[in-house]
Structure formats: C-alpha cells, structure tokens
C-alpha cells in the first residue's frame, strides 16, 4: 500500500516537475524537425522526401539518432508544443521521453500528451536509404550489412559514389563481395558513361539473380510505334505486322486511333447513347424508335443520323483495313541509349535460357516434395490397405491425431526441437494404440466384409473428427517447426526449397527403408506376409493371425501418426486435415498398385508430378490442377485397374 502511494507521489512529482526539464526548442536538430513538422506528422511517403533529405544532409550529429529512432517507431511528438522527442514505452499509458539534442531524459509522461509517429514501411525504406551514408563507414560489420540491405531495397544515384568509396576501405571479404556486386548493379542503373554501363551489364552474363533481371529489364523495355515508312536506326527492334500474335489487329487500330491517325470505332453503348440523345418525337432520323430492337436496325439508324450530320461517322471495316495497310508498325527500345539497351537485351537473352532451365529444375523439386508428402500420407495406408486389404477411412484421422499430439506436446514442452523429438515417438505410440483398439473392436469382425469395413471406419472417422473439434475447437492450431528447419535452401534465386520440405523428403525415405526392413528382414514381416497370403496355413504353422493383424494395423496407424506431425509442421493442424489427404492417399495406393510399397512410391511420384505439371500449364488456377489430376487417375485406373506395379498370381486375387 505504501509502495503504491510512493509511486503515485513520485509520478506526481515528475509531472509537476516536467516544465523544469523542458527540452530546448531551439536546438539545431529540433529546428530542422520543426521546419518539416507538418509533413513528418502527415507521415506519407509521397511528401516525406524533403524532411528526410534535410535531416540526412543537415550534418548534425543527432541526425542519425533521429532517423534511427524514427524508423524504429520510437519518435513521439508533444501534442501541445509540437516538439519531437524519442521515448520508450513503460506501460500502456506512460512513456519515458528523451531529448534528441543531447539525449537527456525529459521524464516520464502519460502517452496521451504525445503522438507516436509510425512510419510505414515505404517511409522506413526511405529512411534506411538516407541512413546509408552514416552506416557504410560504421565500424560494426552488422550495421554496414544493414546499409547494403537498404541499398538493395531502395537504391539511389547517390549510393553509387558512397559504394565506390566504401569498396576501397572494406576489409570484411563477404561484405566486400557484396559491395562489388552492388556497385556493378548500381553502375548499370545510375552511371553516366555508356561504356561503363555496358561493361557492367556484360559482367552479369548468365547471372540468375532476380535483382540483375530487375536492373536489366527496364533498360531493354520496348514500345510499339507507328510510322508511314519504316524508320532506320539502332533503337529499332523490328517490324510488326497487324494481325500477328504480338499485335492483334484491334490493338494495332487502337494505336492508330490513340495517335489520331484514324477514326474511332463506336462501342455499342456509345451508339445507343447517341441514338437516345437524338430521339425526336418517337423517331431517330425518321426511323421509329419502336423498331430499333435489333443491332442491324440501330446501325442503320446511326448511319442515317451520321448522314444528317448530327453525329460523327464511324469507321467501317474497309476503312479499318485501309488504315492498317497505310502504316508500318514497329517495335523500338525506349531506353535513352540504344547501345545500352542492346547490351541489356543480349545479356537478358542469355539469362532467360538459363532461367527456363532452372525453372524446370525448381518445378521438379516442387513435384518431388509434393510426391514425398503424398507418399508420407499414404505409406500407413500402404500397410493397412495394401498389405492387409483393410479399407480404413479413418486413416486421415490418424494423421490428424498425430498432428494434434505434436500441438499438445508443444504446449507442454516449449523448446521446439525437443518437443518435436518427443512428439514423433509419442504420436506413433498414440496412433498405434488407437489403431490396435480399432482393429480389436471393429475391424476384426469385418475382415470378410470389405464394404462394411469401409462404412464402419467411416463412422469412426466422422466421430473422431467431431471429437477433435470439440476438444481443440475449429480454429487451426499452431505447430511450429524448430529454428533450424526455418528458411529454405536456395541454390540460386530460382531454385530453392524450404528445409521443412527437405525434412519431409528425408522422413519419407526413412519410412520407405523402415517399411522394407520390417517387411523383409524381421520376424514380424515374415509373419505378416504369411498371414496375408494364407491365414489358415500361417495359423497352422504356429503364427497367431489375430496378433499379427493387430500389430500390422497398429504399425500402419502409427506411421500415419508420425506423418501427421510432419504434415502439421509444413501446413496446418485442423480437425479436417485428415479429410484433405484421405482421397489422395487412396488414389496413390490404388494407382501405384495395391500390395507393393514400390507401387505406392511410384503412385505418389506420379500424382505429385502430374499435379505440379498441370499447375505449371495453368498457373492461375490451382483447383483445375486437382480436378484434372483426379480425372486422369480415374481414367488411368480404367486402363490399368491393378495399378502401376501389378502383383501377379494369388496375391493379386486377395
């Protein structure tokens, strides 16, 4: 209680004492700020330029602090006096303010008296660019690197000089490399001398980086122009014929109209508006309004109007053809210097070829990654459905249970790496137990009634889904990957793949190996194969088919649980995530060929590649890819009902 009193007292004292430590309104830095006070408060990228320039060029020692604090959203403005300060937030309602001029603490204030300045990221980039001049010579490499980041994002002509100066003094080899590269890029954009620019352009021959293309493409930009005779000169790329792919006739004519070289065509709306505005006593140009209910009648009426001179005549198709024939269309570079444009275009062509190749590689990686995800989702099913022949519609829910296990573990174990290590075996254990329970309680009664198994397991599936909803809610739950799985492996600016996908790929390989090992090298595998082929015979050899079925089903379910953790890491954890994978998983197994793990692998590869392939053909519509993939699979099964890897002999009959 007394402590509270003291606090209040202390606060009151500081508040009362505030005017005593009032900041110096006439400090040079404050004067610069006040001069631009309004635009700083407006905080718009369009108008802020002069303020940043004034600060950056003021030569005041405090300017760098102002820019840095401002960028970090730590600059505040006193609402009464309009003075700027920087401040730390103590709690929701109070701030501790400091003077820019000398860094002296002004005191603790209620934040209602101050307005926080929140520069948006556009302004922050401009501040960053302005800070470059202070940072490039900073002793700390981290800050110099930040300056280079700022240049990469928002380069200015002035940076070129600064970079060249910095290049001479830089001793950190990695930064020196970056500076050298940036210097060449900025030379392309800002250098005065064409020869210098062309040399820089040529140095990027075959470089895949996006920023190189970003620098070159504007230089190599072209525009379509029109003339009566084909002009000569370096800037001309070539001639275009109206009606070709690059220049449809309508576009060509539109260019002519734009340049005032031909009469406009009339749109239907404009025609109607013209007719309406000339209705005169129920008729247009002597034609009754009531008869104007077809296009032809309206065109006639318009022509009649044009004859009376009431409206402009419009171009007929013969006139359009004549106009197009009368002119030459050509493409020319827009850059000021054609030589630079030609050099840029040449380097771009060299890059473009490599880009296409790398894009194909990237697509292949994506397809491989998707295939491994499908494989991971389907491998449990390859055991329960492929080996045992049990249709388990609740397979997807085992995946979901695994993912939720991961989520729950992360709630308890905050360390992400450790929690994943705990979650993987735990997910296996839980789904293994669930699988065993399900096999004991439901499936074993239905071994001879596959259709009933399908429906009963479906019942379990919807029940599990709803139970998950009741426990965890319908909101997606976070399952966060450890730091070392963040980010992606970038081979170059085009080919890259996230580490989490690589991890899933490796996990899929591990499972494949595990499956092969268990099935071919262990006693359990031997017994499983025996029971699958002939349960009665196996039983008479002393194998307990009930136990084997139970274990196999548990094993398949357990793997689904682990797959769930992996899928949850890369996508999302919801109660419906299993349903997203169930149809695809069955397809993968059926397409691959039931009973063969290699078939499942091939099936997953085919489904993944196909989907990515179709997506590539139709990039704006991902849904179409899924639709056509399923259609393809339906057709594929018609012609190869047993899948890619068809088992022969008795196993195929089972």
């Amino acid at each position, binding site marked *: 209680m007394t402590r509270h009193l003291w606090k209040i007292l202390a606060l009151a004292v500081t508040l009362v004492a505030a005017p005593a430590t009032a900041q110096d309104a006439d400090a040079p830095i404050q004067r610069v700020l006040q001069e631009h006070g309004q635009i700083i408060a407006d905080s718009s990228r369009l108008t802020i330029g002069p303020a940043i320039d004034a600060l950056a060029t003021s030569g005041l020692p405090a300017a760098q602090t102002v820019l840095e604090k401002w960028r970090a959203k730590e600059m505040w403005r006193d609402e009464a006096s309009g003075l700027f300060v920087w401040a730390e937030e103590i709690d929701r309602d109070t701030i501790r303010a400091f003077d820019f001029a000398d860094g002296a603490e002004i005191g603790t204030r209620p934040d209602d008296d101050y307005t926080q300045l929140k520069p948006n990221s556009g302004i922050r980039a401009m501040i960053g660019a302005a800070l470059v001049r202070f940072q490039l010579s900073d002793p700390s490499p981290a800050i110099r690197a930040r300056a280079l980041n700022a240049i990469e994002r928002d380069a200015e002509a002035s940076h070129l000089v600064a970079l060249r100066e910095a290049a001479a003094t830089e001793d950190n080899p990695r930064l020196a490399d970056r500076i050298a590269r940036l210097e060449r890029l900025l030379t392309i954009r800002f250098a005065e001398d064409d020869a210098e620019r062309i040399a820089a352009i040529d140095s990027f021959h075959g470089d895949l980086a996006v920023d190189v293309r970003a620098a070159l493409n504007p230089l190599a930009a072209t525009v379509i122009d029109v003339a009566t005779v084909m002009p000569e000169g370096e800037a001309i790329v070539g001639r275009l014929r109206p009606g070709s792919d690059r220049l449809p006739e309508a576009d060509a004519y539109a260019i002519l109209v734009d340049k005032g070289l031909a009469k406009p065509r009339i749109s239907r709306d404009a025609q109607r508006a013209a007719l309406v505005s000339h209705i005169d006593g129920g008729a247009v140009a002597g034609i009754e309004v009531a008869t104007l209910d077809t296009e032809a009648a309206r065109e006639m009426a318009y022509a009649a109007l044009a004859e009376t001179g009431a409206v402009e005549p419009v171009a007929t198709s013969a006139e359009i053809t004549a106009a197009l024939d009368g002119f030459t269309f050509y493409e020319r570079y827009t850059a000021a210097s054609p030589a630079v444009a030609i050099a840029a275009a040449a380097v771009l062509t060299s890059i473009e070829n490599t880009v296409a190749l790398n894009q194909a590689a990237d697509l292949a990686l994506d397809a491989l990654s998707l295939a491994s995800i499908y494989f991971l989702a389907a491998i449990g099913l390859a055991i329960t459905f492929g080996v045992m022949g049990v249709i388990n519609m609740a397979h997807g829910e085992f995946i979901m249970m695994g993912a939720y296990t991961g989520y729950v573990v992360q709630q308890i174990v905050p360390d992400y790496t450790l929690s994943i290590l705990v979650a993987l075996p735990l997910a296996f254990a839980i789904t293994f137990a669930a699988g065993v329970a399900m096999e004991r309680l439901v499936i074993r009664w239905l071994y001879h009634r596959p259709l009933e198994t399908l429906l009963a397991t479906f019942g379990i599936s919807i029940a599990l889904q709803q139970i998950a909803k009741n426990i965890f809610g319908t909101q997606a739950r976070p399952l966060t990957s450890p730091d070392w799985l963040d980010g992606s492996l970038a081979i170059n600016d085009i080919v890259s793949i*996230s580490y989490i996908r690589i991890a899933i790929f490796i996990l899929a390989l591990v499972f494949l190996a595990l499956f092969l090992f268990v099935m071919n090298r262990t006693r359990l595998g031997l017994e499983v194969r025996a029971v699958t082929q002939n349960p009665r015979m196996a039983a008479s050899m002393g194998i307990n088919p009930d136990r084997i079925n139970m274990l196999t089903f548990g094993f398949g379910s357990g793997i689904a649980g682990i797959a769930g953790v992996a899928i949850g890491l890369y996508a999302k954890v919801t109660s419906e995530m299993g349903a997203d994978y169930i149809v695809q998983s069955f397809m993968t197994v059926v397409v691959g060929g039931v009973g063969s793990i290699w078939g499942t692998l091939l099936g997953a590869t085919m489904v993944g590649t196909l989907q990515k392939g179709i997506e590539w053909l139709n990039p704006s519509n991902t849904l179409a890819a899924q639709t056509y993939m399923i259609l393809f699979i339906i057709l594929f099964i018609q012609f190869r009902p047993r899948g890619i890897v068809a088992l022969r002999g008795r196993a195929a009959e089972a």
Partner: protein
Amino acid sequence: MPKTLLSSAAILAASVLPAMAQDCPIKVGVLHSLSGTMAISETTLKDTMEMLIEQQNADGGLLGCDLEAVVVDPASDWPLFAEKARELLTVHEVDVIFGNWTSVSRKSVLPVLEELNGLLFYPVQYEGEESSKNVFYTGAAPNQQAIPATDYFLEELGVEKFALLGTDYVYPRTTNNILESYLQQKGIDDSDIFVNYTPFGHSDWSKIVSDVVALGADGKKVGVISTINGDANVGFYKELAAAGISADDIPVVAFSVGEEELSGLDTSNLVGHLAAWNYFQSADTDANAEWVAAWKERMGEDRVTNDPMEAHYIGFNMWVNAVEQAGTTDVDAVREAMYGQEFPNLTGGTAVMLPNHHLSKPVLIGEIQEDGQFDIISQTEEVPGDAWTDYLPESAVLTSDWAALDCGMYNTETESCVQIKSNY
C-alpha cells in the same frame, strides 16, 4: 380485388398493431454457424451477440421489454441458412436477425428475407454489388477496405506490380475484379497484375510463392494483395516465411486475416506484413479497452476481438437506438429510423448508417507484430460505404438509396430502378 383489399388491410393492421403494444420479450435471431467449417469464425459472433444482448438487458432492456436471443445453427450448410432464416421469421417470429459470414450464405437467405420482410444485420467485409432493402451491411464494402489498401500500396509503398492471390469463391473473385479494373485506371498495365485462385484449405504454396518472387524480375516493386480465406493462410504465411520474404521486399496486405486467424500461427516471421480492416484490437481508445476487457472477462484471457465483432457491436447498438426512436420493432419503421443513425466506433470517430444500408467507417491499416496483434500505422477519415463499385463499368452507373429513391439498384443513366429485390 377483394383479395388485395384484404391483404392491404392485413398489412395495415400488422404495421399498426406493434406500435400500440410491444409484445415482450423482443426476440433477436442469431444466425451463425456453430458447426461445420465456418464455425471457427462464426461462433465468436454468436458469443458477441449473446454478450451484447445481456449487456442491453442489464441496462434495462428495450421499450420496457427484455431482449431474448434465439440462436439457431445453420451448420455451415448454405441451403440450411435459408431454412433456418425462414424458421426464425415464421416460427420464432424474431424482430431482427444478426447473422451470416460467407457471401454464399447471405445470398441464400436474401430471398427469404425479402419475401417475409425480415431484417438482417450482416457484419462481415464483403464484395459489395448488392443492396437489399432487408439487409444492413455493417462490414466493409470494397471501397472501405480493398481500395484504400490498394491506394496505400500504390502511394505509400510504391508498389508497381500486383499479385492478387485469393481463395476461389465469390468475395475474392469480385474484389479482385474490382481491383484489376481500379489498378488499370491507375495506370498499372495488365501484364503487371498476376491473379491466382486456390481452393479452400489449400496447403501447397511453394510454387505460388516462387511465382510471386519471380514477378520482381522486371525491376518493379511487387506487392501481394491477399484475399486468401481461413486455414489456407497458415500454409501461405509459413511458406512465405520459409522463402525468407520480408515485408520490406514483398509486402502482403490481407483482407481476411485478423487477430483470430493469427492466433493459429507463429507470427515472428510475419512481422511487418499488413492487414486492412475497420477495426483492430490494438485500437487505443477507452471504449475499445472496455470492450476488450468485457470480452476477455466473459470468454477467457487468451481470446481476441476482431473486426466483424465491432461490426455487430455497431449494428446492434444502432438497431437498439433505431427501435427506441421508432418506438416499435416493426421492420419498416425501424428501417426508416436506421438511416442517419450515428454511433461511436471503437476505434474513434462516429459510424453513420447511410441510406444505401452501408456504414461510413474509418479504414485502418495495421502491421503484424510478434504478439499476433496489429500495429495501426494508418487510419483514414470515415469512408462512406459504396454498395455499387465505381470501378466496374456496369456497376458505376448503379446507385442505391432506400430513403430518397426507394431502390437498391438504381440506374442513374436510364434513371430507372433495375429491380427492387436483389440478385441472389
């Protein structure tokens, strides 16, 4: 003829009766999915409505009556929305309905509302192109969310190339259509607009994200406008973070990602990406502090508030005031009283109900922070909601004014009412 007489007499009687004696309790229908895919978002709104009604009852009710919430569950099933709306209006005889989230569900109940002359308050940002006599739209129209956000991209971030990513359904489709047209008018070339639609719950984002990165190859600043809905955002933002795309390189502004959606994500890699709404929980006003505290007290400390909740807050309070002003809950009288209703926003300023059944509200742009909240970096003046967008040629000529023109789809060119009822 006798039949018309009879029915007009009935209408007369119906409109006079409630004015004379208000039958208690006043029933408020709540039509939000409590199960199925939309339950995730809509359950929150049901809780909001229950809280608002309890608060109102604690303050003495309305017209001397208690308010009673009639909650039904349309189970994210669009046809069921129509069925439940009919049930609310004919069986429970509610005086007003607060409900719906998706546009499809709204289109599903529209015919029922218009047939039975019901009253619906719709709280979610939507694609516009509609103004029903029986619906008040308290969420944002495109010009209150999408257009200001695009302006922000163009002017403040200097974005020159746009990737419009959306989930394949009506809101993203129409919004992107409007934006495409708007961007073209702003001088952005067709080839600088990349549009992509993905299914609900899409999870494989690697290709799309790398496509977006590749857009930067011609030296123009790229920005993403996302109308991706619900769960799919989780995968999208994860892939974005994995690809190392920072908000400074390629900013993403989302129209369907709020505090609630972010609670399913680790936002440490998403700091700086943007969202545009009319409300953020972080808004620094006393009314908001009180509202957030009441919500947390009722629902638990870890719950967050979001934009559609504020829309219900404004809509409900406006309805209460309109009923008090009209002295009855009769739909036609309340509707007349609604026009010009004012109520303070939780973010400061005042919301006004316009005769086109939309609100005038400020537009906020927030940057995602590490704690899953938004830092408000831009707040406009109140923007009047526009039912028919000005940026599509066929809609530009349309206007809605239920007070003066008594028409929600009025063609200003032909000066005629296209239709009294709505497109479904």
